[in-house]
């Protein structure tokens, strides 16, 4: 069980958080302009890599804020925690 450094509350147990999948997948501003394939790319396609992955997490049993983390999926080490809207740190 890892510890996550919520940018609003500080370090807390993983059990207080909810994972929200891959980060930086922005909802298209004009969905109607998209082809089926383009929409499906947004809707369904997610990465599952071994290594540093950017993820959305929510402090569900705390401040209820969403934020991003950079997590190494091979050892669960969290390389960075950053707020929504901020750019991912360079690897």
């Amino acid at each position, binding site marked *: 069980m*890892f510890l996550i450094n919520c940018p609003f509350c500080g370090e807390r147990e993983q059990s207080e958080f909810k994972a929200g999948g891959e980060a930086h997948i922005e909802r*298209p501003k004009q969905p109607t302009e*998209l082809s089926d394939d383009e929409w499906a790319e947004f809707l369904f396609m997610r990465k599952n890599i071994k290594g540093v992955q950017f993820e959305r997490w929510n402090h*569900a049993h705390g401040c209820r804020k969403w934020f991003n983390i950079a997590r190494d999926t091979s*050892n669960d080490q969290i390389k960075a925690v950053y707020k929504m809207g901020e750019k991912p740190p360079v690897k």
Partner: protein
Amino acid sequence: MSKNLRFKSSKLLDETYRISFKFNNKIYYGYKGDTLASALLANDVHLVGRSFKYHRPRGIMTAGSEEPNAIIQLHDNTSRTEPNVRATEIEIYEGLVASSQNCWPSVNFDIGGINNILSPVLPAGFYYKTFMWPKNFWEKYEYFIRKSAGLGKSPKEADPDIYEHKYIHCDVLIIGAGISGVIAAKMAAKNGLKTLLVDEKSFLGGSTTYDNSEFSKINNQIASSWLEKEVNEISKLENLEIKTRTSVAAFHGYNFLLARENLTDHLPINQRKNKIRHRLLKIRAKKVISATGAIERPLIFDNNDRPGILLSSAIKKYIDLYGVACGENIILFTNNDTAYETAISMTQRGIKVNAIIDNREQVDSKLSYEVEKNNIRIFKGYTVVDTYGYKRINGLSIMKLSKDGQKVIGEKIKLSCDSLGVSGGWTPSVHLFTQSGGKLKFREEDQVFIPSKYPSDQLCIGSCNGDFTIEEITANTILSIKKFLNIKNTNYKTLEIMTGINKSKRNIWLLPSDKILGKTKSFVDYQNDATAKDIKLALREGFRSIEHVKRYTTTGMGTDQGKLGNMHALGIISETAGTKMGEHGTTTFRPPYTPLTFGTIVGRNVGKFFDIIRRTPIHDWHVINNAKFENVGQWKRAWYYPKENENMHQAVQRESKAARDCAGILDASTLGKIDIQGTDASEFLNRVYTNAWSKLAIGKCRYGLMLNEDGMVYDDGVTTRLDENHYIMTTTTGGAANVLGKLEDYLQTEWPELDVYLSSVTDHYATISVCGPHSKKIVSKVIPNLDFSDEKFPHMSFKNAKIGEIKCRVMRISFTGEQSYEINIQSNYGKSVWEKCMEAGKNFDITPYGTETMHLLRAEKGFIIVGQDTDATMTPIDLQMDWIVSKKKYDFIGKRSLYRSDTIKEDRKQLVGLLTENPEEVLEEGAQIVTDIKKSPIEMLGHVTSSYYSPNLNKSIALGVVKGGKKMLGQKLIIPMENKNINVTVADPVFLDKEGKRLNAKL
């Protein structure tokens, strides 16, 4: 007792405290401090169980948690009965009752023993190969296999004991209180660090506690005496918390560990009352030091599993710690110096060492000279090729090893013994280290895996780090702890060590025999009866990865996770395949290190504490009025209110009729309520619901459908505009938390520019719904100041009102199709307003109804229940709810998905009404719907989602989803049941009052 196997003056035992216990229905005696194993051995009992597959007699093999054979059933046939308890770990107490498991009718005469004779036809993978064919016979085989297999019996009654969980945060956790753990604890605590030291034993000091020989000295003192002083000193240290009888079960990432503290298992039963039995410690440590020691390896030779064969270190421990001899004529078999320590302990106590069989040609150490001085025969360069005796070893034969160790040569020599101690060197206990994600490396000199890469802030010291001699252990521990904890000065300058051990070792994973391998039974995994032959067979059949070989042969799959034999399995694989050790992977050790009881895992979360129970403010009234409840999520909801002898069907029929004929009242407090405020609230609703919201007037209500981004229905409910920038949204009971989460997600991540605030107010309000033709008269009596006329207060509108001084909100909305009013009032007034409604409705036969009637009434109207009539594959179009999907809005959640190539298909499953040919026949929910029963396989068109007998229509009605159902109106379909086929006709899902006249009570 005929033999004298017990010595006086053991450090651990209290010889003034004699304890009687029962094993296999016979009474024995031992002393306080004995384990069940040491007490049995003192009574000359070696045979304690039968092996899993061949039912071979098995004896106590070790003196610790690695024990594969001596696993017993504790407290036969009581609620405390517990299987798979290791006799080597359980301390005896007055009243202990234990018995062998995995044997029938008794350990001395076991019918399953026939498997031993049949063993040539029971090779690895036998069950997979034989019983899986023909396929449909498996059920028959399984019955017999399950009957004769299985380890122990689980209790049949509730566990009477108390368990609890505790969080511990510390600077340093030290696992294992052997010599290196004790040194580390002293250094850490004296350096001001908050330190926790745990050990699975009842005492501190590990094996050095009984290292009493002249050949092992620290600063010129006998090692055990030196350590005793150290243990006394650390017991008084302020920063140090010590927990004995505490076994670390799991080592997770981020230095999070679980340990089981055993508090009462060693106490007499009558002293355990109201005490906590086990405590699960959830430890978060800044730094972890593993000092988990090492486990002695057995040797792999023919018939290496007979009762009386033990690890040589176990024989030493039984002598030096418990004062128990494992026999009177003992042979030791070794490939290293460890067995010589055992021999010296034995001669000190006057126990006969018949011989030492040593794989090595060259043996020279202070220890071996001492042994030779005592005139003990040493067979150098020899190996054991066979053993004799069925229920207890009585002899063995040995032969000379060839130079390369691959063959045996020369004459066979027979020797007699009543016990055999084996030593194949030591295996570091890296289980917890690897659990944490640590990587191992292989050390060629002595063929061991040792820690190499730490995944977190941790350190391994002592023999679990591959240091096996006392000078290596002490020197390296002090050095590495200094560095790890950044300590400048220590109390330990240089320790002066004297040891008699020479590190030489001759490692042969599978010892050669004069017989061909197929004729031998050389056990690698004792508990699961996996032999060297089985492993070689697996390799011949193409298995390569250790994980596959493990599963195929079941090596390492027992309750002991193969703590003794895993290394040999790896060794035999690499030898046979001609590869390097570790190349086929090492086995992964998984938590728990030793088995945990369910009680420990569950802790206090049992009975009514198992899960949160949510009750509405009106709950007590429902209880008094005989309601039956159903669980909806964590909520208890009134299900129906049976009168006198009514069954559920009768009650629901009565309630349903009353709601339509006069008046019904429902507790709807569990519906999710979200308060939405902000200048962009309308825009926000526009984006989350499928229909349009900007034009909804203040004081009006609207039904909304919420989709996932994939276009599938997610939740529904009525939302009311309370003010310009203020709405209250209702959600389904089960969906409340998820809907709030989803809305927050969009607000924070996709639309942070919107000025909207969300607040869950589900528990703040009680919701009372009064429906039926007389509902208006009833609520008018409860709230006399409010104008309930249809002109002032039409359907789908809302009013602020007061009941006495208490503010409330009244919505005129309907889930039943009847004229209906919902009163929302501060929770703590809920029950009193409910009672007021009951009083006001007395003359109109107001009838409380539960969720079952609510479901029936809405089904008559064809209203869906999200989650019952939908799953995550239904779009609003599939539900024939096209009317609620706005064509004008540019975007809303899920809109784009509604015209994906897949969602616009015409033959998707669509919601339809179903009417049975026989109006009395009620369909089963979940039943399959088909059209052609002659086709094979029959094509499944869909299934029934809701089904009731309608007392208002006097016929059976149902909703279902059917492929292409929209176009099937009037078509006949078939519901095939186990013993009949039911004919149905596809109908409009709205069965009652399609025009909606009843909403205004115009019947």
